[in-house]
């Protein structure tokens, strides 16, 4: 049999097989579409939460690094005496107060969102 003959025969078989495989066009399965839609929306929400968490983590990491760097720099300044008698607005007291406030804000109870 020539190659063309074999190709024609294959084509005929392909057509018959395609006819056997043919299925009637069905309407979209809305239950399945809804399932995927809900999963996609859940993914979208998760992605938003993840993004917010990473942003918060970035900000807090930067803040922590800044505080740590401040302590390192203060440590390099050498020994110094804390004059508590200078009054409540000395730089050391103000720095301590800022640290306490920062900790208080960080450790505040998170309000419930109801979700």
């Amino acid at each position, binding site marked *: 049999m020539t190659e063309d003959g074999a190709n024609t025969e294959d084509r005929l078989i392909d057509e018959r097989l395609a006819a056997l495989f043919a299925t009637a066009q069905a309407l*979209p399965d809305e239950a399945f579409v809804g399932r*995927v839609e809900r999963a996609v929306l859940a993914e979208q929400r998760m992605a938003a939460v993840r993004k917010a968490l990473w942003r918060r983590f970035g900000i807090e990491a930067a803040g922590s690094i800044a505080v740590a760097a401040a302590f390192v720099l203060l440590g390099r300044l050498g020994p110094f005496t804390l004059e508590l008698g200078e009054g409540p607005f000395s730089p050391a007291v103000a720095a301590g107060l800022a640290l306490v406030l920062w900790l208080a804000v960080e450790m505040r109870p998170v309000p419930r969102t109801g979700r």
Partner: protein
Amino acid sequence: MDQDSELARRAAAGDAAAFTALVRAHEGAVRRFLSRLTRGDGADDLAQETFLKAWRMAGTWRGEGSYRGWLMRIAWTQFLGAHRARGRSDARDQAVYESDTPARHDAEGAIDLDRALADLDERERAAALLCFGEGCSHSEAAEIMGVPLGTLKSIVARARTALAARLEVVR
């Protein structure tokens, strides 16, 4: 730009409604492909995973080839991953069907394609489903299955011979 490309572009920008329209347009083909590939076992879960992966990878679609072809490629990859994870083998497929080898004709003359497909290995089954069932060209099917064109043609030839014999399509 065709409708799928426009919807895919919007989906890549995070438009879930556009993606839902794509799901509505292509779920039939993807589920039919996976259902026959897996013979119904977990096909809908795989189809859902396929669409979720398509959503996550929406930004990577370059508009080369059809969107359906791109989805089919993801579906095929998902199927292979699930199949390998479960550690299934062709031997088991054979065992399930070995007592029922002749292709069955029902009262209306419809041929039991699924039983004939079960005799093929997974690559032959996928190639047959894509080329005969979904009307893909050989190059499209090769792209979907991630094999060279020559290899795909060999796979299709084997599938054709086996199906023609099993389904009594006379040469």
